[in-house]
């Protein structure tokens, strides 16, 4: 059973690569700075966020821009990739109606091309860490774990959203609202200590994306992310479950897509 699937995947590997390439190419086509924007954009927004919020939340922290950047880069990937995956089926309706292609290729390629752009943009983080003197320790290597969880979580969410949005177009607008909620509970530009004082810290415990960002920050700042089990195992479990649910939901409904696009 799996042998057949691997064979089809191999046959369409070239298509997957072409679609990933297309996503990256078209994102920056006709802009003068092109791919440089992957670096400039987070840099500029971090400057703005530091200017605005650094005053309130980061007074005693000289490395506050690095703190903001870690949160922002991970969140931007999550929001960009899930949105792209959600629209991917309808965006390729022309192809889907015409030739048979394994349909998971479309959301998968959307998540992959955003992930590549995200990996490139991590260069900015390296630069910022040097400038603000956040020097790495061995713990920096554990950063790969939250990145893996982030990829899985995004892929799972992308598969679920792409399936549902074929049947219900309003999801695109609803997801924008949900993303806003997720952003504000990710502690991107403030420290959680201020929230903990007000007793609302429980919202962070419900947000797997925040937990991933927290793990990643631990790695960047040279701390051990495994000391508090909950912050590590919760996002790991949610990521794996989201991929399983996403694949199952997608597989169950993919033959009906054609009747709705």
């Amino acid at each position, binding site marked *: 059973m799996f042998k057949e699937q691997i064979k089809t995947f191999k046959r369409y590997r070239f298509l997957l690569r072409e679609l990933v390439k297309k996503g990256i190419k078209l994102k920056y086509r006709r802009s003068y700075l092109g791919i440089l924007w992957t670096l400039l954009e987070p840099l500029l927004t971090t400057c703005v966020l530091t200017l605005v919020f650094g005053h309130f939340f980061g007074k005693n922290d000289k490395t506050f821009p690095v703190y903001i950047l870690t949160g922002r880069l991970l969140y931007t990937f999550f929001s960009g990739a899930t949105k792209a995956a959600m629209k991917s089926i309808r965006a390729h309706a022309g192809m889907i109606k015409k030739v048979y292609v394994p349909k998971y290729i479309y959301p998968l390629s959307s998540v992959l091309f955003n992930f590549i752009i995200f990996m490139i943009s991590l260069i900015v983080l390296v630069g910022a860490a040097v400038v603000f003197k956040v020097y790495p320790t061995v713990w920096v290597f554990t950063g790969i774990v939250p990145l893996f969880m982030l990829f899985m979580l995004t892929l799972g969410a992308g598969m679920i959203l792409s399936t549902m949005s074929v049947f219900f*177009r309003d999801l695109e607008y609803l997801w924008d609202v949900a993303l806003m909620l997720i952003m504000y509970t990710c502690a991107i530009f403030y420290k959680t200590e201020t929230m903990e004082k007000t007793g609302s810290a429980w919202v962070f415990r419900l947000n797997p994306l925040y937990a991933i960002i927290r793990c990643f920050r631990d790695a960047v700042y040279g701390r051990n992310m495994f000391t508090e089990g909950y912050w590590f195992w919760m996002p790991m479990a949610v990521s794996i479950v989201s991929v399983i649910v996403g694949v199952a939901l997608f597989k169950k409904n993919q033959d009906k897509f054609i009747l709705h696009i």
Partner: protein
Amino acid sequence: MSKYAIEVNNVGMKFNLSQEKVDSLKEYVIKLVTGKLRYNEFWALKNIDFKVEKGDRVGILGLNGAGKSTLLKVIAGVFKPTEGEVKRSGRLVPLLELGAGFDPQYTGAENIYLYSAVLGYPKSFVDEKFDDIVRFAELEKFIDVPIKNYSSGMKSRLGFSIATQVEPDILILDEVLSVGDAKFRKKSEKKIMSMFKTNVTVLFVSHSLDQVKRLCNKAILLEHGELTAAGDIDEVAAIYEERTK
């Protein structure tokens, strides 16, 4: 290997035609609660059963709405049949609505790679055939221009060229021989004819009975989603002519 290129076993295709299209969550919930979520069932194809031998060229005849295009899409794997199954052996290239899968922002050259990938060809194969594709489409001067600036004739020429430069085992043609101007039409018919010599299996839909008679050796007739005749082209064409009088 079986001697049949395509086996269509008792295929049925059912569509749920909702009276109004429900595609928002609000509408769906309201209709579900008020019990108005009703569908009209509609069988576009019913009990279709036939086999195509390798090297056969089969014309599919029928009036508008008889289910010809649905049948082609089921065979191409785009639709999954509600019942029954389709077996194919070999590489299948559908020539349906040429150029509908192009990305308008991409240039002609980039679209050649993209479209070939969609058809399931490896990169090395496209590298090799690239010049032939461009030459046959007569687009040497425009190959680095984004497709959105192409005329519709240029787009179809490129689509036809990509789909036929590659060597399919099964070719599905849906009204595609009306591509481009008279000159290109002649050229494309010649190209199709030359492909026939390579023992390719062809499924062909056209409303021009003359063209079907010229190109095919067998035919099937569809009426309201059911198969009413199958056999040699002359027999089936005679029945079809009888029906259309």
